[in-house]
């Protein structure tokens, strides 16, 4: 497949009609598009997905706002304007033209009305042109794969552990299933399974004996075991993938926590000092209060206590202080409604007792008064104790000192948290616990998966044996002979589908792994290779030690690019496989070759973003030899990575996205020794827009 031309009319920031001719030169096979932020680089990538599928990439901002604003503003009342994308491509000797279009009308009332987008596509082969449908396009390039052929590399970002990158990795496993058409086989298997379980049984009104019931039950159990194992085999790798992403995130957290360890230790010391000081203050206060209570006459003067003592004595003599009553006993009597001799109390008796209990409030007064009467003479007659006064003063000083210390400690705590806010919520112990827990789960899933792998053949054989036994018993019933034969036909299809699915996955694993390594090797500066597991998970292995290694984010990003390349290389082969295998025509399959020479084109948005300068340069160097046609969309500050392509004469066409705006801006780029303006000043005050200018090559 080769992309020939892309024509944009009023698409997003692109006003009017702009055309990009993609290079078809086999030597100069890279098309470069340069633009600064905000000029529509990602919109350009999305123009391709929109014209192909009517869809935009995940993360594309304002996906429902596609019509150029400046063009909409200029529509006269009652008139139409259109937004349109045309993609011309060639594939296997056919010329395809795809047009997706949307119209806008400005009503007489001044409202803009947008039509639903329309799609029109033609294929011209051997001079004959025919209309083709969306399904034909989906067959050409499955929608499940478009995120890889139109690859928004900027989403990988500076940190490979971020969500977008995790989503890309998760969709890689799904992309392989799409590439191989695996879902078609698993869906066919589901259908046959339901047909055998629910629709091909002995009619329920037929008299049956226990041997048939037993065989049916046995078959149900064996089939269920086999189906559960198949389901787990599909589900567990996805769970493992999720856990791995989570563990990677936790690894990052642990690393970050280690960086903050020193600050965290300081914070913990401050916290411990604060707690200690607070306890010391509290103890000092308590001790001080005790001393004050014991020596209050010293502090408040004897006269006050002498007067109080006299007043209380008089109150006692005048019977103003009520007598003491035992409240506990009264409470028991009221609660149990019984006298202490066990007799039930009458209503009036109870009221009387409750009335007596009300005096217990006064009883408390009596207690306090008596206690005070006992203590007051001591207070009045007590000696001035200098040592005690000094001690009280000492505690006052201690409390003041602690107050000053606490203020200092709290200020240090605030300062530390301002400098490194991460430590306020990052608890390394908890992160480590979570990491251990997720690793335990990962190990369990991996053990489960390996156990299932070991048992799945046995489950399949058990199911087959039960099926044969069931069919034998069924065939003894004259009414069920037909059912038995029908089951035999479907069982044979089920068996073949299972084997084909396994064979495709197994061969494809080797092909994808080999293809990934062919792309990874030239990009990588180290002696690593990619190992693709049975579950289509990729891990990076050191060739010297033959062990899985932790690699840098650049190296992981390169593995993602290797996957993009391997899809592009394998696509022409598997699209043939797609056509040939399902027909089931004997002898028509033959031997198929993966074809990197005719690999599909790949459009890379900001491909240098995930790398450091060294790898970015290596990537540019290797790209033209890895893919027969690649389109790179770059920011102006990444142009330096393309110098090597200019030097080696590998660029076949180049374009500049120029922003037209009323604001003054003089930024330029240097392209092959000449300056080109990134911004063009427009006279009117209308919305800014972008146009595409061709840059010279060679």
């Amino acid at each position, binding site marked *: 497949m080769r992309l020939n031309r892309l024509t944009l009319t009023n698409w997003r920031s692109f006003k009017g009609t702009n055309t990009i001719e993609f290079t078809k030169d*086999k*030597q100069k096979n890279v098309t470069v598009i340069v633009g600064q932020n905000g000029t529509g680089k990602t919109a350009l990538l999305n123009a391709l997905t929109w014209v192909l599928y009517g869809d935009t990439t995940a993360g594309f901002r304002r996906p429902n706002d596609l019509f150029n604003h400046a063009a909409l503003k200029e529509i006269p009342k009652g008139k139409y304007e259109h937004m349109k994308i045309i993609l011309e491509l060639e594939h296997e000797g056919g010329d395809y033209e795809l047009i997706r279009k949307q119209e806008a009308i400005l009503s007489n009332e001044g409202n803009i009305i947008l039509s639903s987008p329309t799609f029109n596509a033609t294929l011209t082969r051997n001079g004959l042109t025919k209309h083709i449908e969306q399904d034909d396009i989906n067959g050409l390039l499955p929608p*499940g794969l478009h995120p890889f052929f139109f690859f928004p590399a900027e989403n990988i970002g500076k940190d490979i552990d971020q969500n977008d990158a995790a989503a890309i990795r998760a969709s890689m496993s799904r992309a392989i299933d*799409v590439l191989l058409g695996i*879902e*078609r*086989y698993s*869906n*066919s298997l*589901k*259908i*046959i399974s*339901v*047909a*055998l379980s*629910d*629709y*091909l049984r002995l009619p329920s009104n037929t008299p049956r004996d226990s041997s048939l019931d037993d065989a049916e039950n046995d078959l149900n159990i064996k089939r269920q075991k086999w189906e559960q194992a198949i389901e787990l085999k599909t589900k567990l790798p996805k769970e493992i993938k999720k856990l791995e992403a989570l563990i990677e995130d936790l690894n990052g957290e642990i690393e970050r926590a280690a960086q903050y360890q020193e600050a965290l230790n300081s914070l913990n010391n401050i916290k411990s000092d604060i707690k200690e000081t607070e306890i010391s203050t509290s103890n000092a206060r308590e001790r001080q209060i005790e001393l004050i209570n014991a020596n209050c006459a010293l502090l408040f003067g004897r006269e006050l206590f002498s007067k109080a003592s006299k007043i209380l004595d008089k109150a006692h003599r005048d019977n103003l202080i009520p007598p003491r009553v035992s409240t506990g006993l009264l409470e028991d009597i009221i609660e149990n409604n019984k006298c202490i001799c066990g007799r039930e109390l009458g209503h009036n008796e109870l009221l009387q007792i409750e009335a007596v209990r009300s005096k217990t409030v006064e009883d408390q007064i009596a207690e306090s008064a008596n206690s005070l009467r006992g203590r007051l003479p001591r207070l009045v007659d007590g000696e001035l104790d200098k040592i005690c006064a000094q001690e009280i003063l000492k505690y006052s000083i201690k409390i003041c000192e602690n107050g000053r210390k606490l203020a200092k400690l709290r200020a240090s705590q605030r300062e530390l948290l301002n400098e490194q806010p991460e430590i306020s919520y990052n608890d390394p112990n908890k992160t480590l616990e979570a990491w251990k827990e997720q690793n335990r789960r990962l190990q369990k899933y991996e053990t489960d998966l390996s156990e299932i792998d070991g048992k799945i053949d046995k489950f399949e054989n058990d199911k087959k044996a039960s099926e044969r036994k069931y069919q034998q018993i069924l065939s003894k019933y004259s009414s069920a002979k*037909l*059912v038995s*034969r*029908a*089951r*035999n*036909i*479907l069982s*044979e*299809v089920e068996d*073949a589908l299972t*084997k*084909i699915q396994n*064979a495709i996955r197994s*061969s*494809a694993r080797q*092909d994808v792994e*080999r*293809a990934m390594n*062919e792309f990874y090797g030239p990009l990588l500066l180290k002696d690593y290779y990619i190992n693709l597991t049975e579950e289509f998970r990729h891990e990076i292995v050191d060739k010297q030690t033959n062990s899985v290694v932790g690699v840098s984010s650049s190296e992981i990003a390169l593995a993602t690019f290797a996957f993009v390349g391997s899809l592009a290389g394998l696509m022409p*082969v598997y699209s043939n*496989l797609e056509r040939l*295998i*399902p*027909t*089931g025509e*004997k*002898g*028509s*399959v*033959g*031997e*198929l*070759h*993966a*074809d*990197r*020479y005719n*690999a599909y084109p790949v459009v890379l948005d900001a491909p240098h973003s995930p790398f450091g300068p060294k790898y970015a340069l290596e990537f540019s160097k290797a790209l033209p*030899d*890895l893919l*027969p046609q690649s389109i790179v969309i770059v920011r102006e500050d990444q142009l330096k990575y393309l110098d090597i392509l200019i030097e080696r004469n590998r660029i076949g066409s180049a374009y500049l996205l120029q922003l037209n705006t009323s604001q003054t801006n003089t930024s330029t780029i240097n392209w092959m020794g000449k300056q080109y303006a990134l911004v063009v000043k427009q006279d009117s005050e209308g919305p800014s827009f972008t146009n595409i200018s061709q840059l010279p090559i060679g």
Partner: protein
Amino acid sequence: MPTEDNQKKLTFNAEEIRELIAEMQQDSLTIFASIISEVKDHGNALTDVVINELARKYADKARMLAKAGEEE
């Protein structure tokens, strides 16, 4: 540029699949080709309702083929 040698390294041997298909009885092959093509037409996301409908359809089809075989 990629070379012809590179291509040869990436070989998908579909012989095994061809043999599996060739080994099937004619009735099974008919069902196989039909079900694969029908599932493709339906797209990959099949609902339970569609699976159930297709299961009934293929059970009937298998019964019909079995009956035709019996009559022969």
